[in-house]
């Protein structure tokens, strides 16, 4: 872990400790009730992708609200590069809000500006087992996290795409989100320094 990453990790821990905290069980139960309701509301039982999209849209709204608290309380300076933004998401944001310890590393593919974020603990997935069938195969249960990340980054000028690549609820050994850089929002207000 680089020195910068270590600093980010410390900032995430401090930000989490200094904020108001509530039960992760209550969080998981609330989320589970909502996902269950979304699945029950599906017109076509196999249309699981609709729930994925709903969770993503919900996450974007949440992320666009959380970024303000992040800016105020995290103590991390504004990110200048997408690599810094990926570090901030994985090492500060996930820790500060979800109390999740994650790792981040760049994907070594030519021509991509993409990162892999991995975490073993998922507070949303407490008490959850997905039944065999369409849900286990196609539902990204914690897709709200991807939406939160994209929504938050969008508010600070980074256009990004976040998708789950692996999910322990599907039997994978780790949870993995791929975070891809899509461009930057043009700043409409510049302060020359």
């Amino acid at each position, binding site marked *: 872990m680089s020195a910068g990453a270590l600093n980010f990790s410390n900032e995430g821990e401090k930000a989490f400790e200094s904020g108001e905290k509530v039960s992760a069980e209550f969080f998981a*139960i609330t989320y589970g009730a*909502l996902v269950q309701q979304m699945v029950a509301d599906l017109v076509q039982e196999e249309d699981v992708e609709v729930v994925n999209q709903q969770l993503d849209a919900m996450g974007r709204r949440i992320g666009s609200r959380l970024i303000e608290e992040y800016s105020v309380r995290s103590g991390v300076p504004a990110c200048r590069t997408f690599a810094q933004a990926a570090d901030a998401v994985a090492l500060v944001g996930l820790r500060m809000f979800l109390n999740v310890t994650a790792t981040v590393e760049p994907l070594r593919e030519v021509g991509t500006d993409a990162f892999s974020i991995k975490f073993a603990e998922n507070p949303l997935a407490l008490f959850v087992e997905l039944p065999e069938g369409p849900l286990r195969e196609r539902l990204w249960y914690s897709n709200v996290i991807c939406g939160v990340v994209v929504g938050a980054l969008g508010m600070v000028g980074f256009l990004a795409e976040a998708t789950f690549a692996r999910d322990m609820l599907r039997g994978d050994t780790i949870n993995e989100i791929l975070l891809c850089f899509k461009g930057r929002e043009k700043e409409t207000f510049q302060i020359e320094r």
Partner: protein
Amino acid sequence: MSHNGLVSESVVAALNMELISYVVVRHTLRGEDSLIDNSGNEIELNIHKGLEGLGLLVGLRLSERLLYRQPSFGEWTPPGVSQFVARQFWKTAFGKRIDRLMHMNDIYFCLIDKNFQWLQGFPKMRGERIVSTTVLSAYGYSGETVAEDEGASPRTERLGSVPIHKDVLIYTVGILKGLIRVMYPTGSIEIHANLNNENETQFVLDFRSPTA
């Protein structure tokens, strides 16, 4: 690094607001398809049922987790229920204890939150307006009503599919009903909530036997 069972309160508040929005949007959008003249009232009733239903589910499931650690035998007493809600539940869901717990003869309790976390994003109440829910668990859904705000029509109160104060209170009352049902399964209880113009939210646990 071990997981200590906590997450940020702001994430949980945001998630609960999204849950409430989901229910309100679902019923207001469906209501727009209806050509019935009283669709406004029907929408309100469906929103009430939907929010309370999800709240009940959350409360029931949460009770399994919270009560698992309580070394208690048999049914809880009304004071015990109220203390548990004021301390354990409020800490679990809102990260703090209730601000004030008032009671009358160990049978009627009023839990007062001076700055209810889940209403932080909502406009402050002005003038003499009070938001109130009246939920009578003894009579089931068909008998439940949403109290009018001094004659104000629910349709003028709600703008499109944006949640209002009452939605938050109805959902929270639903959670309390689900939680308390497990602790006090056979006794009589009425639960309702009020928000006054001093921005105090009051949750009333009324254990008096209903007058038939």
